[in-house]
């Protein structure tokens, strides 16, 4: 079972505001997800190597070659707020 304070904390970490109704909804949904993981936890994984990666490919790298970037206007095209070539963002502390 997940507590309301934890829902609020998770919301804060994502910097989103949650209404009371949403908090209640997410409390239920996240709890059921965690319950499902509790089922998986019952499995004995004592001698199983942890999986860090699922696709089994290794050592993919690229050469250090610079390529052309996007233009400033393309970069800012989807920005809701901009100023002098910068993205404008709320102040955060």
């Amino acid at each position, binding site marked *: 079972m997940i507590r309301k304070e934890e829902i609020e904390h998770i919301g804060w970490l994502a910097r989103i505001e949650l209404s009371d109704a949403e908090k209640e909804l997410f409390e239920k949904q996240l709890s059921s997800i965690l319950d499902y993981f509790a089922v998986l936890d019952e499995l004995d994984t004592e001698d199983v190597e942890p999986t860090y990666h699922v696709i089994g490919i290794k050592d993919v*790298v*690229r050469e250090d070659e610079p390529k052309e970037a*996007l233009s400033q206007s393309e970069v800012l095209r989807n920005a809701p707020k901009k100023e002098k070539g910068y993205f404008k963002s709320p102040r955060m502390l």
Partner: protein
Amino acid sequence: MKSESTNTNGVKIGLECHAQLITKSKLFCPCSTDYHNSEPNTHVCATCLGLPGALPVVNERAIRYGIKVALALNCEVQPQIIFYRKNYYYPDLPRGFQITQYDFPIALNGLVQIESASGGDGGRERGIRIRIRRVHMEEDPGRLVYKGTIDTAKYSLVDYNRSGIPLVEIVTEPDLRSPKEVRIFLGELRSILGYLSVFDGDLEGAMRVDANISVGGGERAEVKNISSYKDVERALSFEITRQKNLVRRGLKVTLETRHYDEVRGITLSMRTKEFEHDYRYFPEPDLVPIRISDMVSEIKGEIPELPDEKKRRFVSQYSIAREHANTLTYDINIADFYEEVASKMDAGLSAVWVADVLKGELNYRGISMREASKRVSADDFVAMLRYFKKGVITERGATEIIREMLDHGGKPDEIIKRKGLASIGSAEIEKAVLEVIKENENAVEDYRTGKKEALHFLVGQVMRKTRGRANPKDVSKWIEEKI
């Protein structure tokens, strides 16, 4: 209550040093890293902008540079590296997470030796061992520009040109004992990184440091945002005093993150509610594990003679003072310049002129040797020293040539002619001495009645008249003879 909070005992400092690696392209995308004098948001693409669907691919050279740093810091390079996502929400991270490392970093367990803050006097080495906990790679976040200061600005402006620049993070154990030791350690680190040709300390923000500080076994506070190398001592001294004052008043230091305000020189609580587990680290699914064992032996061969070793060689090979060897070996470009001069000229004399005079003039101008070498070649320097040794120019004339070469360029012989720096003969000195004696009767009288300082004044007058082209010792003898 008697506590250890009143002295430096009990101060423990551990550092997280982030250094930008000078690759041509970014860590996970091919955007150019040459952004320092560019318009904002002109060196970015879908990947470093965090647009959905963009796929990061690791820059192999960045990994090699990271391994090189790890080896130079005497670390154990790990067989395989994995990148992780560190999740936190901040405007400088367009994706809401930073790609960094967690388990499986590049290297663990290194060691750096520094000279103690009190200095090894009498040629006695007083080495302090600073253990390196780990070395890993991560991407630089974007840059935030505040209108006003961080706590008064209404909004911030974001430039992602820096986003994705490769950083190597070097984490020390809490083995440092004072702000001064931290400065010495960072100096050593910058020096080593420069020798490896993977780092350019002249670039703004090339090295940034976070510090964990505790006093007298209390809880630690983390100070972030120490962006200037010069600010480190000031930031840490403030934080140590703050913690000691808390302890003195019977209060406890709380585990927290503090922000260094470089304008005011103080640290401020960030009132953060985030802790390590809140970062929800997990392996970055878009990047695959990379086996690095095979690269190590080749990179080992690329590690040059490092500052400490070079320092010891300079002292024994050139028979120069340790102080001079320290100054000459700090910057690889100065060390190379000195060796070239010393191969054609008296090594002791060269050390004095490079370490004391040239270095002093560089510091005064705030320029690096790399910058200066565009104007002053080792051959020019040797030519200048030859004129000085033969007595063609005085010490002052030689200094004048160095200044002229740094400021405007030119060759020593040409500068001597153009500025009339050649030393003058005894007839001319005698003439100047006689004139000065005549013009300064009071000073001459003072000297005769026992005021020996008057002699310095008279020598100064002669030097002025001859525009520094006479040797002050000779002038002094001439005056004593004539009075």
